[in-house]
């Protein structure tokens, strides 16, 4: 097993609607937890990387401001962005900084305070993560883009609305028990009943996607502390190693997408690269976090990651194979659908979940059998950026 760069500390704020504080205070919540988890002080940290989607931030160039608030000056700091996968990209950058020998310990902090703008404004900004010159003038937004994939996929592969609901029912099973999740209410099939005014999740957003098929905006922060092998062994009793990192990009405009029935090309590309680097296959993964910004996205992720053959992702939901006790547990922390999706913090939160699972510290969400290898799949935009990171217990 590759033991070059390890995660030695993880932290996450609660994901909430309307965080009662500023971005620096929000960042502090995840940072404090990760530093206490690692058992280190700021003197041990050589550099920091901050990650968010900047269109939500009123603060220009937040890295310097947050680094000061967290006590991380005068060490070098900067900002990276890949929309919803910003903090996975941050971890890739941190890994590279350590692997190159520039630094030994790097803090990667993802944050997003989405609540400073209205939901419609937020949708417009998210739409601007797609093609603003040629698509936004038609009134696009994130659910509509993913609905284009859902429509073509459902028509070809016989995926049903009940299958999509199945993804949400699974996510809510774990959202209920995740104290950090924004959506903690239990979800039942009746909540999706068409034509029932009491069915809160049934209404169309961008057909075929309904309210219950979409993740919730949230405010939140996440923090991942990375270290080289020497520091990891001296500072940490429970390092979790980065075994593989893959990333890919795709054309922004829908007119340049090759095949809507196949899912996101970046999911396939990033996964292939990460498996190759780790020297493993999908069969070696014991627990995974995938980017379920919409229910359809989780089904497509199963296939991109090789958990199911093309067109057969629905079987994993029908057989409950991706529940905690199933053969391939996925998003057993509630995923983006129930835990919430504070853009810049999401990747770091997914990584935290996998690190806790590999350490056996995931509490009521712990996958049985002592998982030793876990995977994080984190998408930016509508498959504009794809990131897959594989972790292993030492």
């Amino acid at each position, binding site marked *: 097993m590759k033991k070059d760069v390890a995660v030695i500390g993880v932290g996450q704020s609660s994901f909430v609607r309307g965080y009662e504080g500023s971005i620096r205070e929000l960042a502090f919540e995840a940072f404090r937890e990760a530093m206490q988890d690692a058992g280190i002080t700021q003197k041990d940290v050589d550099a920091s990387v901050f990650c968010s989607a900047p269109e939500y931030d009123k603060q220009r160039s937040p890295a310097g401001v947050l680094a000061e608030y967290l006590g991380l000056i005068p060490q070098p700091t900067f900002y990276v962005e890949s929309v919803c996968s910003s903090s996975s990209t941050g971890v890739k950058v941190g890994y590279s900084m350590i692997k190159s020998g520039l630094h030994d310990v790097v803090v990667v902090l993802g944050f997003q305070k989405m609540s400073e703008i*209205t939901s*419609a*404004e937020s*949708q*417009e900004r998210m*739409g*601007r993560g797609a*093609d*603003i*010159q*040629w*698509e*936004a*003038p*038609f*009134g*696009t*937004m994130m*659910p*509509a883009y993913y*609905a*284009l*994939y*859902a*429509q*073509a996929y459902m*028509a*070809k592969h016989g995926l049903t609305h009940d299958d999509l609901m199945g993804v949400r029912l699974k996510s809510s099973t774990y959202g209920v028990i995740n104290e950090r999740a924004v959506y903690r209410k239990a979800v039942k099939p009746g909540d999706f009943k068409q034509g029932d005014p009491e069915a809160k999740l049934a*209404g*169309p*957003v*961008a*057909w*075929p*996607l309904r309210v219950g098929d979409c993740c919730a905006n949230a405010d939140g922060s996440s923090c991942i502390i990375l270290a080289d092998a020497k520091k990891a062994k001296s500072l940490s009793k429970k390092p979790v190693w980065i075994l593989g990192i893959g990333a890919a990009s795709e054309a922004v*405009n*829908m*007119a*340049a*997408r090759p095949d*809507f029935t196949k899912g996101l090309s970046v999911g396939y590309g990033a996964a292939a690269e990460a498996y190759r680097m780790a020297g493993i296959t999908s069969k070696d993964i014991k627990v995974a976090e995938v980017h379920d910004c919409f229910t359809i996205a989780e089904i497509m992720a199963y296939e991109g990651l090789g958990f199911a053959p093309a067109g057969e992702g629905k079987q994993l939901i029908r057989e409950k194979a991706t529940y905690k006790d199933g053969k391939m547990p996925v998003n057993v922390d509630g995923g983006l659908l129930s835990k919430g999706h504070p853009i810049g913090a999401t990747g770091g939160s997914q990584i935290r979940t996998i690190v806790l699972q590999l350490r056996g510290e995931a509490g009521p969400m712990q996958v049985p059998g002592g998982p030793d290898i876990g995977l994080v799949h984190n998408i930016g935009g509508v498959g504009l950026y794809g990131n897959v990171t594989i972790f292993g217990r030492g």
Partner: protein
Amino acid sequence: MGFEKFGRKSFTAVTKTAKFVDFLAEGKVEGTVCKDCGARFFPPRADCAKCFSKSMDWFEMPKKGKLETFTTAYYAPFGFEADPPYTMGVVDFGGGLKLFARLAKEIKPDEIKVGMDVIIRPFKYDDNQLSFEIAKG
């Protein structure tokens, strides 16, 4: 200047492909084709990343294609609140050319199917904004 007239609401004012809007006013939906290597682009590009040429011609897009996928939006972003519901989709013309646009209002929702024959045509909003739309083939 000129590109602010494109679509329901444009987020881009200045682009070297602004002539696209003039073609819409003439009733044509045009893409660009590289004068040096022949690569065709829709949406239009001013520069060819295949051969680094900056010299482009315009060509008229095929009129007939198949609807590859679609969605009906029941909520709209800031600035588009008066429009829902509206349907958007991707048309495949074959030969690597595709296009994204709204579907014409006159098409009934239950008539819209993946794979159906469609045509594209220029479209003018009440406020004279210029666009193009997908209609029944």
